[in-house]
């Protein structure tokens, strides 16, 4: 099977975080009782007309620039016609042949190499609503309810070139894209809330071939894990078909997370004919260059630049810099922490270790971390001063995470201050020696491991509070 290679292109939808919808003044806030964030315009009632929200254009320009795209001087909206109950007008206002941005790229790191992935186009469109099926699944539902709160929330669709060659590359691309959109503050990219979604086009071909194989499209992949697993499955499925002498059918498939397989959604024959045509209710969009330049001035430091800065300014290893800059929130966390505690590598270790571990365990975003950068800095300062040991610090950090209390407060409350006083520690060391004659003897007979055991016993007796260097010193003196 090694003689095949995959060809993957992604279509990513990101909800823009403007305050109001793309064609009306309704709020874009997530949640809210069903059908409360709506008005006649986003409901597409008879006679109403869309009016383009200028902020949406601004956000799209910003995202386009961050992805190294050309921003069109002349762009327009089109109607994409299809029937679905969550689409109030039964057409979606989108952009077809004249998108706002095109011909861009982003870069990913694959096996230490930088790989450039082309971005074909970026366009604006309106989101649809949500169907809530009253039953176990769509086929069994007795009836369905529609919530139009999300209808008209602005989206950008970003279409990549088929430059990706593996599921891992696809995931890296998606992660980088998410980071870039978050860095420019145009989308919060919350995949669990559906504000970042992905469709994947995939085909396989014999390695070395320049022709494309027949592709399938996998719809609605809503996590990085789903993206990677679905692609792995689909590539394997396609290769097996070809190995068996079969042919790939061009179709749209969906990913069944629980079964871990992709299944046919519709075939090419049933494919939609969207009957695109220019949206007559909106005037064409003419974007003056001055506007584009003004937006360019507002672009923040993007992930790649920031990664380079962390390496140069703080001497962080490449791996650390990549993880830290993988999300803007994480990089901001790092910067704020380093401002208060200048040992960057220690900060990076704690962020990549304890912080991410606890965030994952609690399913939290960095922004929602109960321990703020100042809190972590305070904790690290306590270790530095020798007030607590590194080991105790981990317990303290967990406690900070659970309770939201400060490091010093917890250390004081629980009496976790490190024992650095010889007078306090000496009797405990003596007691451990007295109670473990066998180990003492072993040590004296040259078994180094016995020394470690004795240190452990002291630590245990002090609940880990003993200063390790001091324990070592006292033990050696006595043995």
């Amino acid at each position, binding site marked *: 099977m090694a003689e095949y290679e995959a060809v993957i292109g992604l279509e990513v939808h990101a909800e823009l975080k403007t305050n109001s919808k793309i064609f009306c003044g309704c709020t874009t806030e997530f949640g809210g009782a069903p059908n409360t964030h709506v008005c006649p315009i986003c409901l597409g009632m008879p006679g109403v007309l869309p009016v383009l929200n200028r902020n949406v254009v601004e956000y799209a320009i910003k995202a386009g620039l961050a992805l190294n795209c050309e921003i069109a001087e002349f762009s327009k909206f089109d109607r994409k016609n299809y029937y679905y109950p969550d689409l109030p007008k039964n057409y979606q206002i989108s952009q077809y042949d004249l998108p706002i941005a095109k011909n861009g790229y982003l870069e990913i790191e694959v096996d230490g190499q930088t790989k450039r992935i082309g971005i074909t186009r970026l366009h604006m469109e309106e989101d649809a609503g949500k169907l809530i099926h009253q039953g176990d699944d769509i086929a069994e539902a007795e009836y369905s309810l529609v919530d139009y709160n999300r209808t008209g929330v602005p989206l950008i669709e970003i279409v990549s070139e088929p430059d990706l060659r593996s599921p891992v590359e696809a995931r890296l691309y998606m992660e980088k894209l998410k980071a870039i959109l978050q860095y420019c503050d145009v989308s919060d990219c919350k995949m669990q809330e559906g504000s970042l979604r992905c469709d994947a086009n995939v085909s396989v071909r014999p390695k070395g071939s320049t022709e494309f194989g027949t592709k399938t499209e996998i719809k609605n992949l809503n996590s990085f894990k789903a993206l990677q697993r679905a692609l792995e499955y689909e590539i394997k499925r396609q290769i097996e078909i070809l190995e068996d002498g079969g042919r790939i059918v061009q179709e749209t498939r969906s990913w069944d997370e629980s079964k871990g397989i992709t299944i046919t959604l519709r075939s090419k024959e049933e494919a939609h004919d969207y009957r695109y*045509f220019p949206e007559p209710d909106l005037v064409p969009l003419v974007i003056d260059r001055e506007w584009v330049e003004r937006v360019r001035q507002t672009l923040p430091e993007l992930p790649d630049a920031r990664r380079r800065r962390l390496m140069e300014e703080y001497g962080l290893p490449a791996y650390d810099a990549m993880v830290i800059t993988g999300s803007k929130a994480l990089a901001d966390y790092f910067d704020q922490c380093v401002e208060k505690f200048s040992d960057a590598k220690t900060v990076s270790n704690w962020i990549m270790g304890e912080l991410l571990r606890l965030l994952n365990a609690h399913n939290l975003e960095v922004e929602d971390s109960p321990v703020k950068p100042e809190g972590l800095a305070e904790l690290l300062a306590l270790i530095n001063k020798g007030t607590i040991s590194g080991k105790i610090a981990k317990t303290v950090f967990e406690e900070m995470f659970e309770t939201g209390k400060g490091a010093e407060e917890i250390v004081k409350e629980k009496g976790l201050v490190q024992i650095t006083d010889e007078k306090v520690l000496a009797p405990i060391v003596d007691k451990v020696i007295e109670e473990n004659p066998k180990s003492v003897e072993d040590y004296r007979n040259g078994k180094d491991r016995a020394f470690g055991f004795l240190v452990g016993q002291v630590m245990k007796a002090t609940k880990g509070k003993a200063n390790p260097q001091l324990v070592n010193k006292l033990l050696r003196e006595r043995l």
Partner: protein
Amino acid sequence: MNLYELTAHELHELLQKKEVSSREITQSVLERIEEVDDSVKAYVTLTKEKALQQADKVDKSLASGETLGPLAGIPMGFKDNICTKGIKTTCSSKILENFVPPYNATVVERLEEAGAICLGKLNMDEFAMGSSNENSAFFPTRNPWDLDRVPGGSSGGAVAAVAADEAIYTLGSDTGGSIRQPASFCGVVGLKPTYGLVSRFGLVAFASSLDQIGPITKDVTDCALVLQAIAGHDPYDSTSANLPVPDYRQALVPDIKGLRLGIPREYFGEGLDAEVKEAVNQAISKLEELGACCEEVSLPHTEYALPAYYLIAPAEASSNLARYDGVKYGYRTEEAKDTVSMYMKTRREGFGPEVKRRIMLGTYALSSGYYDAYYLKALKVRTLIKRDFDRAFEKYDALIAPTSPTVAFKIGEKANDPLAMYLSDICTIPVNMAGLPAISIPCGFSQGLPVGLQIIGKPFDEVTILRVAYTFEQNTDYHRAKPALEVKR
């Protein structure tokens, strides 16, 4: 003289002099409706109570010494595709039979602001598709000049109401001639403004790039007054032009000396009824006599306007009408086992045959594989038609043509021949394709039925066509002629 027979500007004077009250005027028109609407059938919905309340409000401000705007206290009506808050807006379709919009169209807002009295909603061809008013899902409206004939379409109800004095003026919509052709058939004044001059917000869309709301009045003066009230930029319609609105009363100058008028040869060809042609030619002689310089001009792509229109308008309509699916409002089929069959049955039962015909035409024209051959080609034709006009307007101040090739035809005469029906808009459609303003005014009679004269202007130059129309009107009597309607007592 009955109050209902007067024009808005005449009534305004009486009101301002406190010789009559708005309640009296409104009651007069309501009684007139009572008398004749059983035979004309112009109204789909009457809002009598609301009208009287509004009239009392105007009377109160008049009594308190306020100066009234020119339309304050004057009763009028809206074509039933113009959304009125709290009042049914049906588009004369079963699918919207019970639809009550929670919002007003911008034109409704503006007229309410101006103190207009709304009498109700007027019958039309379903979703404004038709040229005879026979496509209403409820009942056909009749031509007040001859009850066996159609009033024209699709603003037939709005036009018949004015012709029969069942409203002092009305607002209609014009997609391919839907104000001008019925105005011509019923002997009243109908104006299709420049695309973008009047907000379309709240006008239930038929073909968005062609639709335009306009006034239907008894004379040109009223037409200017109503246009003044409804024109101008609307932030809720991004296709509405952000330009200053001229003072249309300035256009009411009875003088056209030195104006250059083009007579497009292609509008006088085959299919033009001889008597209609004669009436229009006499009108042209009259304009020359009044000092205009009339010359023949060619608009070579005119013959392609109709086929291109019947691709573009249905294409947009097929998309605009997709929202009527039974999911959110309006009619829903009684029983359906799943979403798709609910869609299909709702739309099959809710739409009439002409609407279905155009949805199918439009769906076909936009479908992949045919788009380039039909829709795209039609757009190119549209550009050529626009260029014809641009060229003509380099030389002429306005163009003069018949509004309709014939006078009003008999009910049922063309009902089963869609192509023959489509031909009745042949003189009006190019104007919509080019987005130009055009007015139809009465200019004569044939077989005892009114003939309309069409005056086409440059974009946003309503002032010139109103001036030509006003001058013609001031020097003729056609606009004073009234149909002899038998009154039920």
